[in-house]
């Protein structure tokens, strides 16, 4: 197949991890000046094939060719990849929080003075210009940790873009960005495309794919399913290709109904607040209710639940659960009161990569029992197996280390961990971020199922359609305040209504 304009070809890529074949003769073709979506479920091998290209992983076999580079390319590390013009932005921000923004942009290739020392003034000036061009408002001399994850992600992208790259790989860069920032990113991607850069774009957001991409490569279970032109592949077919099955599943969930038992109130909070992050708010949730928190990134969604849960200590207000007043000083108090919290940053806050799947599932339950009452092994195995099966976790065995599972499966394990404690109130902060549609659907179904059994759930998500499908009531957050409430009985919950409420305008 001699095709012109091809930038990178990867053929017959095989990569195995202990017990798992991550890539089984996978392939990928990137052309100059195109935006190429790489789609697939969790564990389909998207991240793995990219890491094989950028030198993070070393492939077992297969060929990689790139225009202008002799022979079969084997990148030993990311530096090699950068040297031949492949720049990458990963889902997790890979920058150094202790360095200034300017340094993060330029480290390794700083402008030099006549005597080869780093020219800080020039570097700051160039960095500021770069940020201004991209319309990102930051002071480049400040350390990176002063800025939000979203801005950090934009900076990571700016770093990759500013390097003279022929191919740019964006591995789920948008999962922490809000709409406006995504728009900025797309503008940038189109500019690069016009310059002839080939872009590989990994994302779970279908809308985004259809907005910017030219071509789609679909992967499933480590194999190549097909490469399609965007206009030849309608959404339904794309989803079907990714899942390898029809989309009835997706449709089914939308029809799910929830009957909130109006009778009992589980938790009430009055005047809770945390200085600097959230203004005093009242909150109430009934048994079997799924309450959604809608709002933009940084509107106080996460802060509200962190305050309820005691991850951030509330400075004012009271909280009662089952009619009893609750004094929460730290998360252990709330765990004992029957709360469970799945934080949005699962890498930092939940996932213990070095422990096995079983141990990760057991750990919260064990914490509740106390350190000295060990749960018998037979019981542990029983619980672990139950949740692996119930949540459909794809793992080689229950003793596989969690770190070896794909992102979505890690998320399921952590969900299983909290379900094992049989909580009265389950708080899910972006439980479906960065995971594929199949898993998303499974998690949504699970949430509805749990609510039917009488569990109360607080659900936070940036995807409105997902919230509409799962929630019975929605609180609207803006600038650290609760600004409104929408109930499915009063108004029909549609994206338009909610977005209007979030934006706060009557327009």
């Amino acid at each position, binding site marked *: 197949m001699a095709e012109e304009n091809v930038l990178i070809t990867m053929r017959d890529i095989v990569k195995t991890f202990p017990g798992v074949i991550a890539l089984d003769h996978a392939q990928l073709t990137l052309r100059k000046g195109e935006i190429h979506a790489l789609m697939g479920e969790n564990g389909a091998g998207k991240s793995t094939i990219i890491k094989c290209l950028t030198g*993070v992983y070393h492939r077992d076999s297969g060929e990689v060719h790139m225009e202008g580079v002799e022979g079969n390319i084997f990148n030993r*590390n*990311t*530096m090699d*990849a*950068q040297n031949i013009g492949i720049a*990458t932005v*990963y889902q997790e*921000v*890979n*920058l*150094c*929080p*202790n*360095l200034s923004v300017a*340094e993060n942009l330029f*480290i*390794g290739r*700083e402008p030099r003075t006549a005597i*080869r*020392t*780093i020219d*800080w003034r020039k570097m700051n000036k160039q960095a500021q210009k770069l940020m201004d061009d991209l319309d990102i408002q930051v*002071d480049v*001399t*400040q*350390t990176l*940790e*002063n800025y939000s994850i979203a801005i950090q992600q934009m900076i990571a992208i700016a*770093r990759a873009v500013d390097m003279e790259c022929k191919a740019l790989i964006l591995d789920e860069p948008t999962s922490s960005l809000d709409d406006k920032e995504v728009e900025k990113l797309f503008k940038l991607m189109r500019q690069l495309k016009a310059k002839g850069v080939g872009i590989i774009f990994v994302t779970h957001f279908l809308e985004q794919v259809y907005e910017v991409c030219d071509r789609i490569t679909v992967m499933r279970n480590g194999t190549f399913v097909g490469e399609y032109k965007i206009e030849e592949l309608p959404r339904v077919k794309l989803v079907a290709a990714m899942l390898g099955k029809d989309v009835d599943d997706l449709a089914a969930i939308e029809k799910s109904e929830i009957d909130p038992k109006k009778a009992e109130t589980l938790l009430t909070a009055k005047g809770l607040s945390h*200085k*600097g*992050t959230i203004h005093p708010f009242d909150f109430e949730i009934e048994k079997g209710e799924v309450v959604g928190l809608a709002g933009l990134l940084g509107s106080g969604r996460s802060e509200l639940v962190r305050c309820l849960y005691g991850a951030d200590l509330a400075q004012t207000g009271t909280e009662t659960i089952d009619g009893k007043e609750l004094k929460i000083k730290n998360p252990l108090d709330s765990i004992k009161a029957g709360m469970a919290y799945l934080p949005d940053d699962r890498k930092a806050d939940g996932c213990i990569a070095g422990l096995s799947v079983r141990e990760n599932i057991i750990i919260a339950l064990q914490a509740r029992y106390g350190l000295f009452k060990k749960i018998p092994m037979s019981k542990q195995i029983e619980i672990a197996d139950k949740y692996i099966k119930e949540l459909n976790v794809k793992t080689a065995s229950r003793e596989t280390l969690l770190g070896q599972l794909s992102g979505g499966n890690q998320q399921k394990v952590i969900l299983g961990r909290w379900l094992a404690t049989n909580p009265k109130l389950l708080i899910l902060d972006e439980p479906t971020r960065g995971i594929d549609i199949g898993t998303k659907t499974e998690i949504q179904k699970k949430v509805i199922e749990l609510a039917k059994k009488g569990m109360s759930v607080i659900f936070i998500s940036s995807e409105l359609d997902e919230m509409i499908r799962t929630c019975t009531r929605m609180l609207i957050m803006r600038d650290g305040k609760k600004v409104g409430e929408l109930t499915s009985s009063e108004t029909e919950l549609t994206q338009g209504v909610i977005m209007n409420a979030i934006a706060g305008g009557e327009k």
Partner: protein
Amino acid sequence: MAKKINGNNILLLITFVLFVLMYGIGCVIYADKGFTHLQTFLNILITNAGLICVACGMTCVMLTGGIDISVGSLIAMDCMILADGMSNKHMNAVTLVIMVLVIGLVFGTVQGVLVSYFDIQPFIVSMAGMFFARGMTAVINTNQLSITQDVSPLFYGWANAKINLPAFLGYMNKKGKMIPPFIRPSVVIALIVLVLVFVMLKYTKFGRILYAVGGNETSATMMGLNVKQTKMFAYILSSFLCSIGGVLYCLNTMSGSVQQARGFEMDAIASSVIGGTLLTGGVGNVIGSFVGVLINGTITQLVTTNGKLLSSWANIATAALLCFFIILQSIFALIKERSK
């Protein structure tokens, strides 16, 4: 945009203010014992010239998130090589100094390779280095050797060379004669090392990668920086600067013994921490460590000037200070976390 005050700069500022304060108190209480003379301050520099070099190297290693506890023993070994070489083997001082520096490089390379390429905990690697160097010191010679003028006039000359500062900075002695303050060549070398390391950390690619590695090693790798090589060079630098420090230390003590410089590595770490370097890496600079050394020296000076206090009080004071700074660092970290 108004420049936000950086927590780390505040720490450095506090360190500096504390030093000035301590020294000021010394000047008030012990004015009659000559504490106000510039020479007292210069003596602190002379005594601690070796520590300045070692602390510079230690800071570089700590910036990467590592640690090097071999430095105290390495100094003992350096001193022993110098003392034994001059007094028993009648070797030339210049040859010996070069030898010591080369040994430092080799020693550092071994540690660096083990830490970065074999991925062994820095604490364990440098602990092995510590035992090795201390053991080698005894193997070379178990006696307490002193370097006298007869043994090596050249080395003796270096140790006792005076570099006079302008006389008006001096003081009148009892006979009414102006005594100019002086420093030793070792101080000049230590200060040159300090400036060079400062420039390296701030203005070279290597220096900045040290910070990047300490900030987030995975990120640094992903950004295409050569993390392993950088870490290796950090340990080489530490051992090399330690060997320079060893020579300076020897010029001050003029002796070699197995028991020498015990706990010196802890002095270096303490100086760095007091100077604002985080043990977790990524934050700190050598100016802070320098002030840390000065604080260390001032404490000792205060205790010796007093004359009645047990010298162990200096340790207790250092302990208190360390606690104070670590708590302070935590408080700043907490404030930062809160304000997010």
